[in-house]
């Protein structure tokens, strides 16, 4: 299983529609400070079902919608869509390709889709149970999070290992 394509519109600094095709191997993202690299990581976390806005550096849910710049007005919706190669059926679905989509409106409404069918947030989260991508995970290390592995209490390390086992 690997990520194939990421589509972003209205999410944080991605006011314009953006499409990123990912290699099954090593992908590198570069760029100056503040241009949106970590926002790509936030977008992936968000579309994979992250429920907690604080994990995306936000305080209120609407923080993830593009809120304007000197030259552009705020938008009303954030949308992220991710296409996953599922040919080894790690995800418990009969498809070789699985597309997850998530939308959030300024009104506070949320929408979630698996292969274009409307679902709930928990359906997306349950898709990944047992794939090694849970909350204590070691597969997403955000900016400045590297040392949490060593810094925490010995019991937190245990929790992380239990998640992996």
């Amino acid at each position, binding site marked *: 299983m690997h990520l194939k394509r990421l589509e972003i519109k209205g999410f944080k600094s991605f006011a314009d529609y953006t499409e990123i095709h990912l290699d099954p191997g*090593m992908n590198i993202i570069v760029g100056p400070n503040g241009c949106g690299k970590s926002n790509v990581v936030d977008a992936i976390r968000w579309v994979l079902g992250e429920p907690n806005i604080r994990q995306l550096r936000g305080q209120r849910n609407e923080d993830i919608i593009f809120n304007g710049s000197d030259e552009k007005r705020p938008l009303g919706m954030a949308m992220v869509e991710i296409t996953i190669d599922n040919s080894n059926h790690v995800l418990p679905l009969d498809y070789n390709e699985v597309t997850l989509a998530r939308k959030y409106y300024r009104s506070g409404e949320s929408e979630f889709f698996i292969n274009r069918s409307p679902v709930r947030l928990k359906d997306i989260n349950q898709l990944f149970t047992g794939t090694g991508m849970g909350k204590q995970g070691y597969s997403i290390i955000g900016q400045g999070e590297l040392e949490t592995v060593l810094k925490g209490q010995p019991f937190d390390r245990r929790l992380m290992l239990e998640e992996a086992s």
Partner: protein
Amino acid sequence: MSTDFQQFLSLADESFQQTFREIFGGGEAQLSLQQEEDPFTAGVEIMVKMPGKKAQSLNLLSGGERALTCIAFIFALLRLRPAPFCLLDEIDAALDQTNLVRFAHFIKNMAESTQFIVITHRQATIEAGKKIYGVTMPQNGVSSVLSLTLPEVESIAG
């Protein structure tokens, strides 16, 4: 008689010892269960010894040594229990040139069997990449992404 977790911990310890030695080119590392009456609530201790130095408690290590030890720990888990993909945001920031080259070499090998998406400013890591994306803001406040080749990176990497 050991619990399920103790059995997994011994596998994780083995993987961590091997990964640590490979990444640091020597030294020793170990994971162990704290000595506590209840093996179900005992935490996990980490001991590391840098090549040529004495075993130190983690807090006495340098910034770069701690960073590379954490990287060894994460890679040890990934080898033991591969994840479908791995997202890393500037985890190479604290590494000096020697450690950076070791890290880049190591992650390039791991990328044979696991998909990586790595945000970095460091040249050696960039050169380990198969595909490179540059993120910029030609218009203030609005991100724009373009596919890059290695020579083109020079002008865009921050």
